[in-house]
């Protein structure tokens, strides 16, 4: 056979694991040989969560969505549900939500056109109520927003308050929050943020509150996605994610308020990024389930399969979506979605083909749903669980990822743990090193991206421009802010704010006071002012 012209190059996985041109049984590391007999649904779960896989539990089609006014976001979510989405995500306007600013804050006023561009503006429970109009919150699976740690208590309390007002029993309400440290302190470092120790307290408070009042709710969801799309490679994403989980578990253990197994269950719904190296990414999900089982059993003596069975949401890598020749991104979304499906997921979001241009247009959103429907209904991949199981290559890669991921986990512990590694900027340094390497590889031709580094002549018949949402989000938000302050029960709002402030300065759980604050129509910016006063600012370790 004729040798391919570049046979001399170093073939490696996306994270740099050297690859052979084929694998044999003896390549599978000895330690991993022992788990090859486990079936899907059996510990250590690398082969999947359930023996029947997608036959009985098709992955949830779960798309990030939101822009404009709350009613615009509601309309888009309704559209996605009509198209076949099987859960929904409420994105709050990043400008206001991430900083807990109302729209009349000087930093927002200076950027009023940005308001509503990346999520609906929700400054009070009235806005959240509009956004949730007619949404099937009792039967569907809702994501209340609150991706950034300091925003989560407000977003969750808002969602739950609306649910209560509609007569839903919180103890039966399904759904999820996020409160993600990777996003808040690594991926998207905002202008002002509470310090990491205050963030840890919030997340533990949310876990406790859900344990008592919302047992069907996923209180926090560690998003390795945000670490990976900031530059962490696959084993680093795994190692850092479990280092994050350990912080939550240690905090709960220190408090002694919840059995550790229930705490593990509470933080055992996580997300990973799916990028373009199909087999490494699919192997990563298999590795993740095994590592979680291992961590809980070895470190916390937790062996209950209901707990050690990690639940995984995946989102396809936004950073892999190209600005150039954007229609190609439909292919990328499909391949990354396939990787997730092969690795085994409970839910999936596929980035819009216009990801590098803007938030998704209605058409891009529809395509993200269609891609998943084609995968689920036309390819027959739902028929067999863990179709890659037993592949010499995939089992070897799974074992190699686990080994490298634990090594990174250990490095983080040597830094003093996950929070310390964020506070010092060590994690940012790791991410930045990889980013730099990747960009250099694109420039020197070793990493090819079709339409960007190669085959750049665009003869695509499609014109794609950025979707810019609506142009009245700011004006409406400002009017509604004034209205809520004018018409709310001022005495109740004032007393709720004082109570919140008192609770923040004590060691009591923040959530009951936050529920009262939302019920009393305290606004986002007012909560933010209380935080800023109580906690001060996180000392950002990076220069942006």
């Amino acid at each position, binding site marked *: 056979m004729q040798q391919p012209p570049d046979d001399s190059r170093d073939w490696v996985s996306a994270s740099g694991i050297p690859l052979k041109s084929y694998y044999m049984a003896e390549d599978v590391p000895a330690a991993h040989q022992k788990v090859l007999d486990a079936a899907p649904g059996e510990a250590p779960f690398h082969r999947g969560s359930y023996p029947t896989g997608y036959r009985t539990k098709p992955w949830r089609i779960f798309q990030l969505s939101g822009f404009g006014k709350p009613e615009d976001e509601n309309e888009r979510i309704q559209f996605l549900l009509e198209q076949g989405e099987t859960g929904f995500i409420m994105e709050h306007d*990043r*400008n206001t939500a*991430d*900083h807990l600013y109302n729209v009349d804050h000087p*930093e*927002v006023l*200076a*950027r009023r*056109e*940005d308001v509503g*561009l*990346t999520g609906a503006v929700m400054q009070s429970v009235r806005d959240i109520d509009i956004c949730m109009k007619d949404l099937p919150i009792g039967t569907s699976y809702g994501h209340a927003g609150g991706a950034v740690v300091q925003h989560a208590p407000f977003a969750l309390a808002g969602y739950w308050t609306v649910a209560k007002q509609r007569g839903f029993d919180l103890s039966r309400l399904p759904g999820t929050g996020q409160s993600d440290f990777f996003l808040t302190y690594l*991926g*998207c*470092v*905002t*202008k002002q943020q509470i310090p990491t120790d205050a963030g840890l307290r919030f997340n533990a408070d949310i876990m406790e509150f859900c344990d008592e009042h919302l047992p069907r709710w996923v209180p926090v969801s560690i998003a390795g996605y945000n670490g990976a799309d*900031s*530059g962490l490679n696959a084993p680093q994403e795994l190692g850092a994610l479990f280092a994050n989980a350990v912080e939550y578990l240690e905090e709960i253990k220190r408090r002694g308020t919840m059995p550790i197994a229930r705490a593990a269950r509470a933080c055992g719904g996580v997300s990973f990024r799916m990028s373009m190296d199909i087999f490494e990414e699919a192997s990563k999900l298999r590795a993740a389930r095994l590592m979680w089982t291992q961590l809980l059993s070895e470190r916390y003596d937790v062996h209950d399969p209901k707990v050690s069975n990690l639940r995984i949401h995946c989102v396809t890598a936004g*950073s892999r979506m*190209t*600005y*150039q020749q954007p229609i190609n991104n439909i292919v990328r979304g499909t391949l990354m979605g396939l990787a997730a499906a092969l690795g085994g997921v409970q839910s999936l979001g596929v980035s819009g083909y216009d990801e*590098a*241009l*803007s938030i998704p247009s209605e058409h891009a959103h529809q395509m993200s749903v269609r891609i998943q429907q084609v995968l689920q209904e036309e390819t027959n991949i739902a028929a067999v669980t863990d179709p890659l199981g037993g592949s010499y290559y995939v089992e070897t890669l799974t074992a190699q990822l686990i080994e490298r991921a634990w090594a990174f986990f250990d490095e983080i512990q040597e830094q003093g743990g996950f929070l310390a590694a964020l506070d010092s900027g060590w994690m940012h340094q790791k*991410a*930045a090193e990889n*980013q*730099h390497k990747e*960009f*250099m590889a*694109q*420039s020197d031709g070793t990493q090819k*991206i079709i*339409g*960007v*580094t190669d085959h750049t002549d665009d003869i695509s018949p499609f014109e794609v*421009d*950025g979707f*810019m949402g609506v142009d009245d989000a700011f004006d409406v938000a400002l009017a509604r802010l004034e209205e809520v302050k004018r018409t709310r029960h001022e005495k109740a709002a004032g007393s709720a704010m004082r109570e919140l402030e008192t609770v923040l300065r004590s060691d009591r759980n923040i959530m009951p006071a936050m529920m009262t604050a939302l019920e009393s129509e305290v606004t986002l910016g007012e909560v933010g002012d209380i935080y800023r006063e109580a906690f001060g600012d996180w000392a950002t370790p*990076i*220069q*942006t």
Partner: protein
Amino acid sequence: MADTGKRILMAKTGLDGHWRGPTIVATALRDAGFEVIMIGMARSDEVLQAAIDEDVDLVGLNIGGHIDVALRAVELVQTECEGMPIFCGGVVPPHAKRRLEALGVEVFPPGSQLPDIVDSARRLTGIA
């Protein structure tokens, strides 16, 4: 690489915290011998003030939101610092790119390659 003696201000016009793009660009510019002053998220008046205070030769803007917010900073700098070159990057859809280019701003959307950005900095600061 040899010091170019040229100073570049880099700022983010929006409140979006993605730092990946500007950080990579700043590293490449420093490697190419530029002094880079990063001020993070800044309003248009803060961009102008920093450009004057730091006596820079080029202003780089990272744009993550609505084009009108970026245009305010561009127009203020162009009015108050006559002849100050500006380049920008970030999530800049084609319609926004055209408006910036009409004002003489060089635009590097996602997928731009670092050597091209460095070449542009050299050209805009008059050393190439």
